[in-house]
């Protein structure tokens, strides 16, 4: 039956269509679609699994560390039970000390890898300095303790006589904790267990987040101020020359980050090229060399240079699409060049400014290398503090809390960026 016959002979009433082997067409189509869907999933599957295992899972695990709190629960189950009835005033009674003794004795019998006293000391030390030495000193002597245990513990270390330590044990004796976030927002628990602000001289992180935001904004503004003119310049010249001059933007983009950072160290340091030049032409005296590096200035200059291409490239691609005739029309209708630029041209570049601005801001807010190398003390950003807690102070819970806050901030910004321009429009080079 030819196709023409089939259409002509089609009955007015809807009848089921069949494929050659007799299955209903709808079913065959569904099966084929399902198979195509599965093929597509099978192609994406390997990478999806790879990213989930080696990227998403590690980050989720790190975020979990910011609330995970197993140390006290594992080490002192009996003590925590005995503390249940303690009202938080004064010292706990003898029963609690006896329970503590039992917990610590039991721990000595465990194989070395499973001992819980070491992690307990580290965990308590985050809340109260000297707690670690109290725990380790006590644990060395605990075998010889005799009743009454409260005196024995207080003889071993004075900290056992302080209600603060007991309040911490009771408060943090839960499998999950908020204390890392409390610390990451410059707060602490007072005696009644309320969250209050830390004394002024111990506030670090809120102002560090503030400084990170301020530096990132400054860098974003600088890249805009420098990027807009050259993007305009490049977009309004013949393609041939523009491609050639584009190299000036792309070469830094492709050059190693460490190379660019060390270039600024070479230029800006006290004995560097710029200071030598200024001294030699007599603008400044040898004693008054300008310190342009290892402070905020260094961070801003170097990062502006490093991130400038990320502003120029989106701006350029938007400006290329703006027809010249619009500005000409505005001028022929009597607008001054400035008005034509301000009212007609500039509004059309806003998508590019938004895209470049958010991109630069997102990158700079989580930047680590350049601030670490040229930032000194005043140019440090939040990433440097996260790295310090992971590598030096070993307070991983606090690092995780700070990291989670940073990550949430970046994801919100990225969501905004996506709303503005769409992730697909990211281009490189």
């Amino acid at each position, binding site marked *: 039956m030819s196709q023409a016959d089939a259409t002509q002979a089609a009955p007015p009433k809807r009848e089921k269509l069949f494929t050659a082997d007799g299955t209903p067409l709808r079913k065959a189509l569904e099966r084929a679609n399902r198979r195509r869907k599965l093929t597509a999933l099978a192609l994406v599957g390997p990478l999806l699994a790879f990213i989930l295992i080696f*990227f998403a899972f590690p*980050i989720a695990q790190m975020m979990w560390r910011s609330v995970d709190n197993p140390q006290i629960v594992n080490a002192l189950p009996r003590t925590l039970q005995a503390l249940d009835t303690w009202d938080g005033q004064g010292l706990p009674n003898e029963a609690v000390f006896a329970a503590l003794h039992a917990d610590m004795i039991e721990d000595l019998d465990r194989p070395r890898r499973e001992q819980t006293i070491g992690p307990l000391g580290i965990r308590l030390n985050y809340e109260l300095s000297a707690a670690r030495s109290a725990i380790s000193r006590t644990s060395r002597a605990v075998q010889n303790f005799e009743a009454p245990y409260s005196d024995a513990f207080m003889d071993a270390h004075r900290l056992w006589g302080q209600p603060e330590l007991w309040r911490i044990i009771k408060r943090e004796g839960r499998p999950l904790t908020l204390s890392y976030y409390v610390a990451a927002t410059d707060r602490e628990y007072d005696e009644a267990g309320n969250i209050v602000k830390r004394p002024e001289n111990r506030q670090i992180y809120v102002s560090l987040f503030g400084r990170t935001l301020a530096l990132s904004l400054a860098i974003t503004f600088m890249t805009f101020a420098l990027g807009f003119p050259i993007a305009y310049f490049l977009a309004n010249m013949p393609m041939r020359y523009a491609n050639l001059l584009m190299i000036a933007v792309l*070469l830094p983009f492709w050059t190693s980050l*460490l*190379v660019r950072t060390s270039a600024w160290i070479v230029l800006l340091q006290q004995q560097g090229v710029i200071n030598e030049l200024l001294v030699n032409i007599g603008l400044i005296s040898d004693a008054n060399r300008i310190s342009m590096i290892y402070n905020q200035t260094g961070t801003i200059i170097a990062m502006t*240079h490093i991130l*400038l291409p990320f502003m120029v490239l989106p701006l350029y691609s938007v400006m290329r699409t703006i027809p010249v005739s619009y500005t000409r029309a505005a001028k022929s209708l009597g607008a001054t060049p400035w008005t034509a630029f301000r009212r007609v041209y500039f509004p059309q570049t806003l998508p590019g400014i938004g895209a470049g601005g958010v991109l630069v801001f997102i990158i700079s807010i989580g930047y680590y290398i350049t601030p670490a190398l040229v930032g000194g003390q005043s140019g440090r950003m939040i990433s440097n503090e996260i790295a310090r807690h*992971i590598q030096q102070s070993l307070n991983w819970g606090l690092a995780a809390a700070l990291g989670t806050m940073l990550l949430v901030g970046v994801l919100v910004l990225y969501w905004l960026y996506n709303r503005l321009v769409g992730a697909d429009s990211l281009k490189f080079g």
Partner: protein
Amino acid sequence: MALPAYYTAKDKIWHYAFRVICFAIFFFLLAPILIMIPLSFNALPYFTFTREMLTLNPDGFSLRWYQDFLASDSWKRSIRNSFGIGIAAMLVSTFLGTLAALGLSRSEMPAKGLIMGILISPMIVPLIISAAGMFFFFSSINIAQTYLGVVLAHAALGTPFVVITVTATLVGFDHSLTRAAANLGASPTRTFFKITMPLILPGVISGALFAFITSFDEIVVVLFVAGVEQRTIPREMWSGIREDISPTILAVATILVMVSIALLTVVELLRRRGERMRGLSPQ
């Protein structure tokens, strides 16, 4: 470009002032990178031009920092590591990324937005957070401070670039070509290698280059995940800058600038080729 005749004096001043400003900004972009090249030939361990260099006296120049670089075992190891890790990571991310891009560009792909979001997340998450997460996870499965760990980490960071560049190439892809191949009796595999692959190759290669440069230039993850054995060139530069900064850094930097010029050229050529080829295929 001649100025239009109707330009007033103010217009002219503004026209030239604008050009001066633009060239000053181009100077700001290029000068720091280019200034290291002559300084790397300094005969003395300074980061400034000596009097001999300024008078072009041959005694002011030397290759001693390049000799230092080539004689040092740790630098040599870092070159091997950088290329080895970079190429291995590039192969992993190009293979996985190209497959995923082929899947993502199919119209019947479910949950496209969500999956795309997950796949490009390594590009968005701040490196310090990725590095910290990988440090804990890789330590717990005992692949921290191994080549395997660094390669896997770098492969994960490189895949978004492959996915994005290959997906972009596939946007302009004419699917009637593969249908024609199938119609003429080619198997799906044969269609892929004979028809699809040659057409998307420029995208795949530039994605691969991006993946390579991502690994080659990466330092934060290396700082956390790599041990002494796995130190790459950026890692050695990091210690060089932090501990004792010597002009050897400048010699390395000069070589790296040359490498980036070469890569930039390749990518530019590929882009042009890709545009030409897509111009040929009917849209």
